[in-house]
Structure formats: structure tokens, C-alpha cells
């Protein structure tokens, strides 16, 4: 049983020809893998796009940079785990520079933000290609082999990926709900002027929140690197899917993020079994558009307009 090659958009290389129970569990786990990744990538986007109204088209490059960080660490002899540590740092560095150099100057000019971040995205892609050369970069997972889960056997690394993603998300929830920095973020997001009035440095809070989102996306890139085709252009698929997550799920709550990820990730995983990945993508896009038409404020928000 050889895992089927997967497109970078859907890191769910599937096992072939399953029995019913095997099939169900495998599909569920595949979906969960994709959902985990989407949640991590979508988190940063929910912060920047959803809450700060910044349309950052270079968000996908945080994922790319994270994946390349793992590749780079491995290629100079480091372990995967060291690479996985480097991934969020790489994402954070790029995110911080982007915020500082570009985004903070354009908060009041949404279309300009779209154009400038797209420019940065192209520059990063070509920069990576010029630095590391053409072609897909190999990244080896820390653990080969599978785990017997009674109903099915499943690649062990994917289970680790799911666990790390869930723990990260839990950590973020705790950070936002329990710490004073989390309180700052929530205050700034709810009312920027008011937050300034009570002495919160909103600029700094925005910058940190943005960098934080970039770091999480970088981590996602590091996690997905052994499963995906690591290319300078890999980011755009994550970008599109993460935007769907945020648009479908609605902004402003972790619940929305989860709902959006489940919708996009679940649908993609299930469809991927039946039809070609790009047709599956098209159907997910259409479903997302229809969902937005029916519930403009997101799946998770009770009131539909």
C-alpha cells in the first residue's frame, strides 16, 4: 500500500482501496490532517483579514517559508524537529518585516494592501527560487511507518501532525483568553480608539498579532512539509483555502475558524476520493460561495442577514 501522490493543496495522501470501516476512519483522519493544517494557516488570516481588515496575499508565503525552513535545516544536517522549531521563527521574521515595511503604512488603503502584499508574495517566491533553485525540495518526516489503529493503519507522522496542531490551537485559545496580551488584542480588535484611550499601544499590538499569525502559518508549513510538494509556489493554494476558511467560518471567534476549517477541509477530503483534486477544489469554491450567499456573516454566527 503506497500513499497516493497528493497535490500541495490537500495534504491528504490517501490509502488505496479501503474496506468500509477502514475507508471511513482513513477518510476521517485524512480530513482531520487537512483540517488541522487549515486551522493553523487560517488562524493568522483570521487575525489579519478578519480582525484587522488587512488583506495579506503574502500569507501563503509564511507557509512556504516554514516548509523551506525545515528543508534548509534538514539539508545542512539538522533534525526535523530542529527544523520544525525554525519554521515558526522564519514565519515570524518574514511576517514582522512585512508588517513593519509595508502593511502598517497601508492600514487605510485596502486595495493598496492587496497589491503590495501580492508584490511581496511574488518577490518571496522568486527569491526562494533564485536561492534554492528550481524543483521540489525533499523533506523527510521524523518518523516513517504506520500505526495500527485497529480499524486501519495510518502513517504515524500524520497523527503527530494532528496532535501538534491541536495542541497549538489550544495554546492559542489559552493565550487569547487568559493572558494580558490576549486581553490587549481583544480590546484593540473591538475598539481601536478606545484601546488607545486606555493606553494600549495599538500599533504594537497589531504588529505582534500579525507576527504571531505569521509564526503559526510558518509552523503549519513546517508540519506539512514532509507531506506536501515543497515548492516556492506552494503557498497560493494554502492562501486560497485559508481565505475560504475565514470567509465561510466568519470572523471573530475560534469557533468560526474551526467551523470553516471543517467545512473546507472536510469537503475537500471527501471529494478527493471521488474526483480529481482540481474539480474538488472547484466544488469547494462553489460551495463556499453558496454558503456565503446563504449566511453572509459566516457559518458560525447565529444571525443570518
Amino acid at each position: 500500500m503506497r500513499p497516493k501522490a497528493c497535490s500541495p493543496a490537500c495534504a491528504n495522501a490517501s490509502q488505496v482501496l479501503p474496506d468500509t470501516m477502514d475507508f471511513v476512519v482513513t477518510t476521517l483522519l485524512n480530513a482531520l490532517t487537512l483540517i488541522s493544517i487549515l486551522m493553523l494557516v487560517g488562524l493568522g488570516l483570521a487575525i489579519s483579514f478578519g480582525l484587522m481588515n488587512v488583506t495579506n496575499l503574502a500569507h501563503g508565503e509564511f507557509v512556504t517559508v516554514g516548509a523551506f525552513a525545515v528543508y534548509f535545516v534538514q539539508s545542512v544536517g539538522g533534525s526535523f524537529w530542529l527544523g520544525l522549531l525554525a519554521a515558526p521563527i522564519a514565519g515570524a521574521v518574514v511576517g514582522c518585516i512585512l508588517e513593519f515595511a509595508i502593511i502598517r503604512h497601508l492600514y487605510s488603503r485596502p486595495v493598496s494592501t492587496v497589491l503590495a502584499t501580492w508584490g511581496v508574495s511574488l518577490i518571496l517566491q522568486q527569491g526562494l527560487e533564485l536561492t534554492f533553485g528550481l524543483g521540489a525540495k525533499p523533506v523527510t518526516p521524523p518518523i516513517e511507518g504506520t500505526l495500527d489503529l485497529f480499524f486501519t493503519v495510518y502513517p504515524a507522522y500524520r497523527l503527530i501532525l494532528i496532535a501538534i496542531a491541536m495542541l497549538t490551537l489550544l495554546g492559542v485559545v489559552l493565550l487569547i483568553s487568559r493572558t494580558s496580551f490576549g486581553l490587549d488584542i481583544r480590546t484593540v480588535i473591538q475598539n481601536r480608539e478606545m484601546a488607545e484611550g486606555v493606553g494600549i499601544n495599538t500599533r504594537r499590538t497589531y504588529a505582534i498579532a500579525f507576527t504571531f499569525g505569521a509564526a503559526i502559518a510558518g509552523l503549519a508549513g513546517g508540519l506539512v512539509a514532509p507531506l506536501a510538494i515543497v515548492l516556492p509556489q506552494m503557498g497560493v493554494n494554502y492562501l486560497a483555502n485559508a481565505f475560504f476558511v475565514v470567509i465561510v467560518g466568519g470572523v471573530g471567534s475560534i469557533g468560526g475558524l474551526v467551523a470553516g476549517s471543517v467545512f473546507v477541509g472536510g469537503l475537500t477530503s471527501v471529494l478527493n476520493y471521488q474526483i480529481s483534486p482540481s474539480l474538488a477544489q472547484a466544488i469547494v469554491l462553489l460551495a463556499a460561495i453558496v454558503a456565503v450567499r446563504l449566511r453572509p456573516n459566516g457559518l458560525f454566527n447565529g444571525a443570518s442577514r
Partner: protein
Amino acid sequence: MIARDRNWLVIFAVCVTLAIVYPFFADGYQLTVIRDALIFGLFAASLDFFWGRTGILCFGHAAFFGIGGYIMALTTLNDAIPLGSVLGILGAIAGAAFVAAIIGYFLFFGGIRGSYFTIVTLAMGVICQQAAVSWSSVTGGDSGLIGIPPIAFDLGGLHVDLSQDLPSYIFVAAIVAVVVLALWSISRGRWGMVLTAIQDNEVRVAALGHNAPLRLLATFVLSAAIAGLAGALYVCMAGLVAPDLSGLLLSTEVIVWVAVGGRGTLLGPVLGAIAIQRAQQTISSFNPSLWPLLLGCVFVIIVFVLPDGILSIYARLKSLFNGRRPAQ
């Protein structure tokens, strides 16, 4: 307003004159270069009609260009279809308009505007390119379809054959001129004025009895239809169609053409397309991967240095000579 209209018409007339005299000074190859650039200029004008008039950025406009191109290719390559060129062009226009109508309906009536619209159209472009690659039984996959014949038809005594350089140049230049002029008159009339009002305050427009989403949808569909037309023309001139034609890179290039040429001017984007493609050919001849890098830099430069396009340099200089600060 009147002076602005007059200026536009003067520049338009100058451009048309240049286009008419150009064949007397150019050889066949140079003609085809300008012809192909003009087709992309038409594509740029189609995006400008939507983006410039509504303020909403479509980030996947190449999807419509590609849809038009593939429909044209499939129609003309099928020997069973009579009048392939004519039906192909009509089909390309209709196909692009249809897709835009479906997607636009859900977005505009779902209240999707601004950045959300940009994102969804970006995804649309990505998917169109993927579909073109993976649906290889129809689209020819990565390598696309080749051997597309030039436009040629006999219709009611009218005999058209564009296999030669000069006729094809004239045909394309005439279409571009007519379409740009038509778009311009639409956008300064009632339709354009309501669109400007929608940009200012959509709720207010609706409260006056206008169906604002329908207006936006109609604008989007017309814009997509023209992009489809441009795609159809291009594949006949180039003789081939490939997934790149609906790809993200072309979608972003057309944005640069419009932004550099001057958003909302319709003519500027056409000129921007011609100028930038010249630059692209020169740069790509050194190193093909240099171009996307430069394109990225151009995006950033436009935003920070020239938010109103190349033509705004003239306005800035003018206001400098008049001793006033340029308007922000």
C-alpha cells in the same frame, strides 16, 4: 468634466492615428508584436471597466480570458462546426459572461464586496488554471492545444481571412478601438454615474430605488465578456492555448497594466499593457525568472510611489508648475 472628456477624445484620436500609420513604418513581425500587445490591451481595458468603475478588484480576470481562449480553440479545432471562427468568438464571449454571471450573482447578491470579492476571484483563477491542467482530455493538459487556425469566415458576402499579418492587425486594432470607445461612452453616461455613486455609498443608491447588486453584476458580466473576447482573439493569433492563459500570473499582470496605465481611464491600461509587455520581453530575454521578481517590485512601487498610475506623473508635474501641492 467637459474638459476631461475632450482631453480623453483627443488622446484617443491620437492613438487611433498612430495605430493607422504604424503599418506604413513597421515590418510584419513588428505588426504582430503590437497586434498581440493590443489584444492584451483589450483585456486590460476589460478589467479596468470593472475595477475602475466599481472600485472592486477582480484578482482572477485571466480566468475569463482563458475560458474565452479555450472555447475559441475547441470550436475552431472541431471541423464539424461550421463558421467556427464566428461561433467561437460568440461562444467565448457567452462562456466568459456565463461564468461571471454565476459567480457574480452569488457574490454581489450575497453582499460580498471589497477584499472578499478579490479573494474569491483569486481562488476562481487558481481553480480555472488547475482545471485547464487536469482536464487534459479536453484541454490538452499542461501543453494545451496547438494548431488553432487564424480567424477566417464568409458571412453574407463578407469575406474575412486573417492569416496575413496586416489584415489581422487591422482587425484587432479596429476591435480594440471600437470596444474601448464603447466602454468609455458607457462609463461616462448613466451606467457609469450610478456606478460612481455605488462606489461612494451603495446603501444610499439602493435607498433611491436602484438595484445596486444588479448594476454591479451587469458590469462584471460585461467586463468578463470582453475578457473572453480578448482571449478568443489571442488564441487565434498565437495559434495555441495553454493553462497559463487563465493563470494567476496573467491575472496579476493585467492588474499591473491597469494600475500603471491609470485605473479608470480605459485608454491608459491599453497603453500600459503595450509598454509593459515590451519591457517584459526585453527583461525575460536575459533571465525568465527575473520577470516575476520585477513584477513584484513594480506592485510595491506602484502602491507607494505612483498610486494613480504613470499618467499621474503628468498631473503632478502640472500642479508643480502651477505652484500647488499635488492632490493626494
